[in-house]
């Protein structure tokens, strides 16, 4: 540990950067993971994709009962139909995504040509537009069917977000997402990290706060509160609103970069979507 600091310090001096700017994404991820593994030392790593149910035994019982008859199943079926049904021009999603439908683990990724983070919903809409179809709405509605099917077909794949070193814009996007995650927002003045890192496992009113680790593995998610399946960016929107901050555009730059950072933190964890939550 101290050796690492020494090396980092030496590097910082050599490169002339302030020490705080030195952490690489990989260092961030290890620190992030260690934070939770120290805090919940009895919880095995592979449990984190189960969200709050990894640490809340009471909630877990209900959840296990719900998973016996998964509420997201009909959405998977509808999504399969969408995937297979040709567009008006005769092409299908498979023409855009030859490796599909099990492609969730390839997103988000850095798109060097476009110079931006590419998310799965954005790629799906790009495919639709390239085939003269209307784009789907990003938070509610049919996109969730399609995503449910893709998530289901991607189960067992492993989160593996890459921040390529040959394009400094990729690291900048990652850093931007990281800063977003740790920045206080809204009238109530919370960062994402205040609830999901600092206070993960504690109870806010009646809700146990889930640890951030594993937050991205199971989307889209069926929420009893929503009565339907919703996207990750819909969840971001809700969490921004509850601290009385104006939410950002789904799949706009802020949330894309946030997803890039947050998914990177879960590298190594298995995909298990679609999920079910309260």
């Amino acid at each position: 540990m101290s050796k690492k600091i020494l090396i980092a310090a030496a590097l910082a001096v050599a490169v002339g950067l302030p020490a705080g700017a030195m952490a690489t994404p990989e260092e961030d991820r290890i620190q992030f993971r260690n934070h939770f593994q120290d805090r919940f030392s009895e919880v095995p790593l592979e449990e984190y994709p189960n969200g709050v149910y990894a640490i809340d035994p009471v909630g877990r019982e209900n959840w296990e009962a719900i998973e016996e008859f998964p509420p997201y199943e009909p959405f998977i079926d509808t999504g399969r139909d969408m995937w297979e049904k040709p567009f008006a021009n005769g092409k299908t999603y498979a023409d855009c995504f030859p490796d599909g439908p099990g492609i969730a683990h390839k997103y988000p990724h850095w798109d060097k040509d476009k110079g931006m983070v590419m998310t799965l919903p954005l790629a799906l809409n790009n495919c639709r537009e390239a085939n003269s179809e209307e784009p789907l709405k990003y938070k509610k509605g049919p996109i969730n069917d399609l995503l449910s099917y893709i998530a289901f077909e991607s189960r067992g794949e492993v989160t593996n977000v890459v921040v390529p070193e040959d394009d400094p814009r990729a690291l900048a996007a990652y850093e931007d997402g990281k800063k977003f995650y740790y920045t206080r927002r809204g009238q109530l003045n919370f960062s994402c990290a205040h609830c999901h890192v600092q206070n993960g496992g504690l109870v806010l009113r009646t809700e146990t706060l889930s640890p951030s680790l594993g937050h991205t593995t199971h989307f889209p998610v069926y929420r009893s509160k929503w009565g339907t399946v919703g996207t990750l960016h819909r969840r971001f929107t809700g969490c921004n609103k509850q601290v009385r901050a104006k939410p950002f555009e789904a799949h706009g730059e802020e949330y894309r970069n946030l997803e890039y950072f947050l998914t990177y933190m879960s590298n190594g964890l298995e995909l298990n979507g679609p999920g079910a939550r309260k």
Partner: protein
Amino acid sequence: MIETFSRKVATLSGAALLAAGAVLTPLGASADNHGGSEMPGKAIAFDRGKGNCLACHHIEGGQSPGNIGPPLVAMKARYPERAKLHAQIYDATTINPESAMPPFGKHYVLSPEELDLVVDYVWTL
């Protein structure tokens, strides 16, 4: 812009305080009688759209509290100076920069008058 803005707020809150002054004085006096249940600050503290203190703190008489913050007990012993208690609730980050407690005064989650009432109430806990 910040200058004009603060001037305007000063004017407004001056007027508001003046108006509230008549109400505030007798309340301040009753803060000592430990009659928690009748204090107007209690309703504000418990109201989910106002203080919502129960989201994070156990408070005697409050339903389903969270546990992000410590139970609010023995306040007068722990905060002999009312101003310190006021400061914690006004903006907790001045005491702990990483506090998860919302800055109820600084961000006007509560109006200055509401904040005073809540401090009066919490001080009796």
